């Protein structure tokens, strides 16, 4: 029987090694798998490359993972947001690397990684410094830049509901990067607000089919990053 459910965040992240590339879902706090990130902090894996749209805020979640010096490189589109000081401080002293990618190119690169496309052309960033050193090619009179598919060892994502097969549905704009990260990762780990029986999710509305998901852990009442930040909380 296929059953991808595990009991604790600690179990599902236990094999994340030093040097791994990890995609982390979420756009700001919406969709951020904060309990999985905290389990990764507890685990202590270092020298990680992390793919996320941002770099977290305050001193919890992704920001705390960075503050704990576990991340050597961020691949993201917008590394500074409100209440975001951890990454900027480390970046300015040269202690963390940044690969800045336009948000749509980041999304498309992740999808390409998951879909078996090693590289594709896009008009985004042509003529800007983010295209410097990249291959430019003209199709039908317009210039495009070559961008590469992006894969990872792990994806940590958050969803609304899951079943034992790993079928997932999301909540509103908390969906964001998670479905494509689930496609692009060798091992996809989801924290779910609830686990339901196989067949309870309408097959027409499943956003992430189970073959993209390897492990599920139920976190029925996830912490809200913005509340923790407002309260000045730190992790650990």
């Amino acid at each position: 029987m296929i059953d991808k459910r595990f009991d604790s965040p600690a179990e599902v992240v236990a094999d994340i090694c030093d040097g791994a590339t990890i995609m982390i879902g979420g756009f700001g706090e919406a969709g951020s798998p904060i309990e999985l990130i905290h389990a990764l902090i507890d685990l202590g894996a270092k020298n990680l490359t992390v793919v996320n749209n941002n770099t977290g805020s305050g001193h919890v979640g992704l920001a705390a993972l960075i503050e704990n010096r576990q991340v050597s490189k961020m691949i993201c589109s917008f590394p500074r947001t409100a209440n975001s000081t951890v990454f900027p401080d480390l970046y300015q002293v040269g202690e963390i690397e940044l690969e800045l990618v336009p948000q749509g190119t980041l999304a498309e690169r992740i999808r390409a990684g998951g879909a078996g496309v090693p590289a594709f052309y896009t008009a985004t960033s042509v003529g800007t410094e983010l295209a410097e050193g990249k291959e430019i090619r003209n199709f039908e009179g317009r210039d495009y830049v070559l961008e590469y598919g992006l894969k990872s060892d792990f994806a940590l994502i958050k969803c609304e509901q899951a079943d034992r097969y790993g079928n997932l549905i999301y909540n509103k704009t908390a969906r964001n990067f998670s479905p494509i990260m689930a496609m692009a990762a060798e091992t996809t780990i989801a924290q779910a607000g609830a686990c339901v029986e196989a067949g309870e999710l309408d097959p027409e509305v499943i956003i992430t089919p189970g073959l993209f998901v390897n492990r599920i852990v139920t976190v029925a009442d996830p912490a809200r990053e913005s509340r923790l930040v407002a309260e000045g909380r730190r992790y650990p």
Partner: protein
Amino acid sequence: MSTQSNSLEKQVGWNREEMAKRAALDIHDGAYVNLGIGIPEKVVQYVPEGREVIYHTENGLLGMGEAPAPGEEDSELINAGKKMVTAIPGAAYFHHADSFAMIRGGHIDICVLGAMQVAENGDLANWSTGAKDAIPAVGGAMDLVAGVKTIYIITQHCTKAGEPKLVESCSYPLTGQKVVKRIYTDLAVIDISTDGFKLIELAPGIDFDTVRDQTGARLIDGRT
């Protein structure tokens, strides 16, 4: 020069609300629109009655509605600026690759953005000052200008230091090349034409020479 309207004086120029209001006149009925953070967000308040406009936010929602009523906020229903919003009846959620397929595939009609500089050929700089010690952050700006059919800019005509933001060529790092169609400033509405900046409309109390003097490149008078 004050560009604020004042009930005791004759109005000179447009304020932020008025710039947004003027831009809103150019949002057509049925348009799919993405609004940048800042003044562009105000456009939604001024779209003329009788026009139905659908707002896209790149973090995965088509049919973005107003700010939620107190007590109705949902931290998982936010816009690209990470503010909590609502969804209209008829809205749809989707993931990031699908959302940017809408942008990059040319399916959004209009995007209204702010600017640091606009060049007379339509080049736009609005993501980075290029300062060595700055943390670079681009977000979806380069995708929007490369993919959306029509790019409108709302910006003060000059910087706080009085430097022109409409220039011959951008000194700041570019967001995109030849992407801007029209600029709404506190002084005027200006199109990017094949001949460069072309004045379309003056703000109240502003004359052509004033705009020309504050523009860092040749300005054509395109008023008919």
